[in-house]
């Protein structure tokens, strides 16, 4: 076939058309001439004659050039052509990049979908963890005005919030000039009994200016005022939630009387819907003036005058323009003055201002510590997703070499091309981010679902909804992600290797450097998922170990419920009668095998600690205490090693007795029997204790309580009949469905006192679950994300192998043609995959040890280099590798040498 282009070009030369346009016209015309020539040949003409007749087609070329010239004159200003770098208009370039990018993405919907989904999983995981952290640590208090000006006043010593006395509060309130208001509160729980079934509600005893200082608005009625406090009015403000729920949003609730802890209060208002108290994670329902204590507990009212009684939390609002440092300096100054005037009680108190009302800095630090590891985990997932996408982009970049080569040849600068590719990838990242937010919402919901309502340190009633912080976070994550996964492929793709790119008619030529870079990405993915899987393995092992811990008691089929007797209705003797009647009624319930009362749960509960002074040497031994009824140890199946159980005879008239655990026995009376030994609960050297000595009557087995993972601490059980407790936990071991039993417990307690709420009705096994919240959360999160990482890495490996088999079709065909066995071809592919995985595992090994070390405080009963975990995870990864190799390897063995070689 004659070459027509040299004939056509001179005809157009005078026009100086833009090069791409000229190239297109030349190509189009030369194709036309090809067709023409072929037809003439097939019509029987000699080649020379056919060529002459074909060239006649160009005979009237002046018509064409005239037409083209006219078109050129009419044409709008210079069109923007991809690959040109003449325009410096950024906006136009950007718009063009965006349009071009969108076209490229729509051209390959499968590719776009895979990339966007991969990114959505990675970004969604990060969004979920961030939403969680955002809710716990970043969201400001709701329903208060200008929360950034609110500060907590704390003692100098210690890191956490601390409390103050009422006289101190008055001094700070009246002598400072930096606060526009200073308020105090004390936590309280109330038995709310009005009409319907009694309910246990969280509330606060507050100073009269509490709502004023916070800047809360009333939704109905009014809020508390200083006059309410100074006149000791029995008034209450209720939350929007309580108003909606219990009072069905009845506006007539204002002025109505409600019973709280058996006292009558008049509801004066409903707080703003947004406001749920100032303790992060808790939802308060009732606020009453602090001074109502003078009416409800006249004997305890002396506390208002005691400078040594630290029972109030103090917070204030800085005046506009006052910095926290200046405020802190003035409070320190007042503290020093107080030290001088009242050295006994206020010495070393100091005072400092802590920004951010709501969460104790110690709890905050704990939360932050706990969230580091999940954040690392989701970071790893995102990195793997990036590596995966980068791998896909590299593969596609190869297919686009010609396109980019052409654009470079036409004069586009490398920067311009990189910018175009980055724009395209940024669009992918933003699409991934958009979908990632949805994935994040879903994952957050799952995360919140596995959270308990509260742990001893922290209540989890947070607002986990999305806000602008989450959006900003996801947006910036998406942008960063886009930059991360696209930089390397963009640099690689735009390398000015024009000649080979343009020459390359098809893309079957092997590019070792490309698969090399992709291999590196796969190795990275394997290494990262190995790290995550090891961490997950260690967490799962920890959880299994934790569940296998011998607690020293039987938690199965044990229902627990809390009943608090209000003091104004129950003095000690009435309370004891109630508790005895309760035991009798419960014992007759069908299905109840054993029961006991205790002041505290062994797990997931606050602690009571004090010291004892053995009679012999009077040296203090630190102990934890519980007060229990006489069948408690039996009901819990806590084994008594020596001595006897409590009996009904161990009451207030009998000599004081106690049962101790093994650890205390060893610590207080080493090498001798503690039975019959006596101790006092006050320091004998200070004297003055009016109570008699306590005699040890038994030694019980150690139990795991406060901290599952620590060795048992010294522990004492006191008999309930000698140590009355108004608040008790009922422990019921039963053979029937706990739900049915719970209803029966409520019914029986209600029969004794209809105003008494029975609350926190839970199985002891659930308490164990709550106690293991950090371990469980970590295990579930990291396993979930570990599996996600594994799936991503597996896909990455599969993608690389499939690609490399396709690239090497000719080579494999040649090998088979030269007599290579199918098995050896299979081996070729599988070994390639295995090599990458083994390399990844090798690199991941030290990193996984590093992560495990970081998690050390959450691990139990498993070493950081636990051989079982490492073996199982390695085997899993290898299995996934083989699965990923399977299809590409099979395809390789099916290569038909004839077809493969014909491509050459």
């Amino acid at each position: 076939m004659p070459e027509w282009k040299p004939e056509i070009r001179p005809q157009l030369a005078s026009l100086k058309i833009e090069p791409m346009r000229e190239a297109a016209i030349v190509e189009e015309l030369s194709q036309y001439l090809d067709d023409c020539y072929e037809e003439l040949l097939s019509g029987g003409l000699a080649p020379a004659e056919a060529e002459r007749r074909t060239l006649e087609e160009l005979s009237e070329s002046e018509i064409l050039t005239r037409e083209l010239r006219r078109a050129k004159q009419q044409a709008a200003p210079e069109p923007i052509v991809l690959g040109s770098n003449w325009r410096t208009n950024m906006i136009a370039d950007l718009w063009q990049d965006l349009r071009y990018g969108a076209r490229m993405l729509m051209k390959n919907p499968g590719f776009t979908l895979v990339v966007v989904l991969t990114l959505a999983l990675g970004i969604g995981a990060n969004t979920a963890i961030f939403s969680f952290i955002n809710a716990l640590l970043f969201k400001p208090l709701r329903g208060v005005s200008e929360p950034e000006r609110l500060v907590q006043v704390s003692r100098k010593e210690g890191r956490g919030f601390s409390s103050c006395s009422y006289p101190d509060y008055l001094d700070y309130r009246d002598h400072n000039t930096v606060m526009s208001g200073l308020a105090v509160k004390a936590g309280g729980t109330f038995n709310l009994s009005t009409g319907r079934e009694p309910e246990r509600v969280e509330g606060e005893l507050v100073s009269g200016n509490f709502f004023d200082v916070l800047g809360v608005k009333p939704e109905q009625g009014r809020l508390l005022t200083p006059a309410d406090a100074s006149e000791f009015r029995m008034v209450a403000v209720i939350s929007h939630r309580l108003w909606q729920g219990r009072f069905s949003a009845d506006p007539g609730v204002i002025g109505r009387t409600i019973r709280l802890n058996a006292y009558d209060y008049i509801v004066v208002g409903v707080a703003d819907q947004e406001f749920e108290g100032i303790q992060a994670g808790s939802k308060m329902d009732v606020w009453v003036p602090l001074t109502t204590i003078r009416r409800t507990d006249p004997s305890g009212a002396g506390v208002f005058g005691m400078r040594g009684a630290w029972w109030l939390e103090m917070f204030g609002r800085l005046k506009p323009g006052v910095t926290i440092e200046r405020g802190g300096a003035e409070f320190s100054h007042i503290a020093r003055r107080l030290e001088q005037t009242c050295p006994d009680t206020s010495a070393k108190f100091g005072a400092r201002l802590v920004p951010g009302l709501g969460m104790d800095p110690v709890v905050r630090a704990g939360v932050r510590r706990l969230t580091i590891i999940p954040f690392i985990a989701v970071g790893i997932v995102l990195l793997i997703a990036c590596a995966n996408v980068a791998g896909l982009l590299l593969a596609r970049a190869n297919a686009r070499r010609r396109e980019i080569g052409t654009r470079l040849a036409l004069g586009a600068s490398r920067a311009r091309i990189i910018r175009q590719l980055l724009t395209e990838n940024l669009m992918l990242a933003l699409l991934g981010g958009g979908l990632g937010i949805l994935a994040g919402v879903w994952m957050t919901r799952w995360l919140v679902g596995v959270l308990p309502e509260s742990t001893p340190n922290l209540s989890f009633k947070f607002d986990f909804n999305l806000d602008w912080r989450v959006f900003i976070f996801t947006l910036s994550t998406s942008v960063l992600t886009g930059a991360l996964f696209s930089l390397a492929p963009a640099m690689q793709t735009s390398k000015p290797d024009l000649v080979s790119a343009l020459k390359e008619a098809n893309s079957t030529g092997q590019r070792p450097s490309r698969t090399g870079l992709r291999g590196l990405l796969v190795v990275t993915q394997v290494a990262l998922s190995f790290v995550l899987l090891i961490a997950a393995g260690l967490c799962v092992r920890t959880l299994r170990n934790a569940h296998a811990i011998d607690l020293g008691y039987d938690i199965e089929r044990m229902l627990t419920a809390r009943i608090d007797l209000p003091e104004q209705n129950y003095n000690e003797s009435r309370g004891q009668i109630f508790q005895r009647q309760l035991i009798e009624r419960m014992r007759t319930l069908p299905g109840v095998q054993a029961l006991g009362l205790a002041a505290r749960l062994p797990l997931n509960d606050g602690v009571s600690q004090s010291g004892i002074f053995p009679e012999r040497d009077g040296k203090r031994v630190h102990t934890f205490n519980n007060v229990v009824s006489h069948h408690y140890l039996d009901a819990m199946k806590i084994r008594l090693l020596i001595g006897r159980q409590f009996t009904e005879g161990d009451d207030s008239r009998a000599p004081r007795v106690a049962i101790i655990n093994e650890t205390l026995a060893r610590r207080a009376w080493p090498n001798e029997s503690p039975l019959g030994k006596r101790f006092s609960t006050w320091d004998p050297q200070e004297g003055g204790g009016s109570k008699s000595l306590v005699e040890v009557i038994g030694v019980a087995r150690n139990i795991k309580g406060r901290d599952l993972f620590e060795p048992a601490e010294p522990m004492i059980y006191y008999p309930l009949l000698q140590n009355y407790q108004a608040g008790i936990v009922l422990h019921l071991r039963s053979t029937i469905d706990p739900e049915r039993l719970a209803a029966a417990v409520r019914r029986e307690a209600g029969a004794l006192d209809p105003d008494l709420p029975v609350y926190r009705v839970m199985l002891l096994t659930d308490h164990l679950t709550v106690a293991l919240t950090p371990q469980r959360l970590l295990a579930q999160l990291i396993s979930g994300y570990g599996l996600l990482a594994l799936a991503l890495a597996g896909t990455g490996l599969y993608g690389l192998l499939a690609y490399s088999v396709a690239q090497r079709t000719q080579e494999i065909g040649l090998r088979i043609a030269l007599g290579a066995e199918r098995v050896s071809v299979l081996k070729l592919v599988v070994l390639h995959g295995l090599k990458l995985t083994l390399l990844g595992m090798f690199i991941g090994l030290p990193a996984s040890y590093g992560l495990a070390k970081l998690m050390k405080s959450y691990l139990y009963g498993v070493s950081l280099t636990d051989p079982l975990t490492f073996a199982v995870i390695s085997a899993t990864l290898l299995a996934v590798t083989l699965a990923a190799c399977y299809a590409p390897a099979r395809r390789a063995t099916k290569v038909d040498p004839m077809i493969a070689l014909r491509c050459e």
Partner: protein
Amino acid sequence: MQTINYQKLDRELKKGSAELLILSLLEARSRHGYEVRKLIDTRSNGVLKFNAASLYALLYRLENRGWIEGRWVEKAGQRRRRYYKLTREGKQVLAAQRSIWESFVAAINRVTRPENA
């Protein structure tokens, strides 16, 4: 119908009819340049002939006016070719030109019909 002088009529007829030919051929489906030329050749039994230069001059003009649109299309096993298709505006122009042509032909027919004695 507007009146036109003979010279102008001759020019417009030549140009307009050529445009009409191409627009009509692209009405049913998109075609490449050589295909258009072959169709004109065969359907007119060789009476109407274009060569490459005049055909492409016309195609580029129509494209420049936005009546037709050229696109490179790759088909498996073939070289990529530039196919032309009618745009929405082209369809309107075709309809208008067709009716002008038909009334023109009818007018000519009326004039040139042999008179019955």
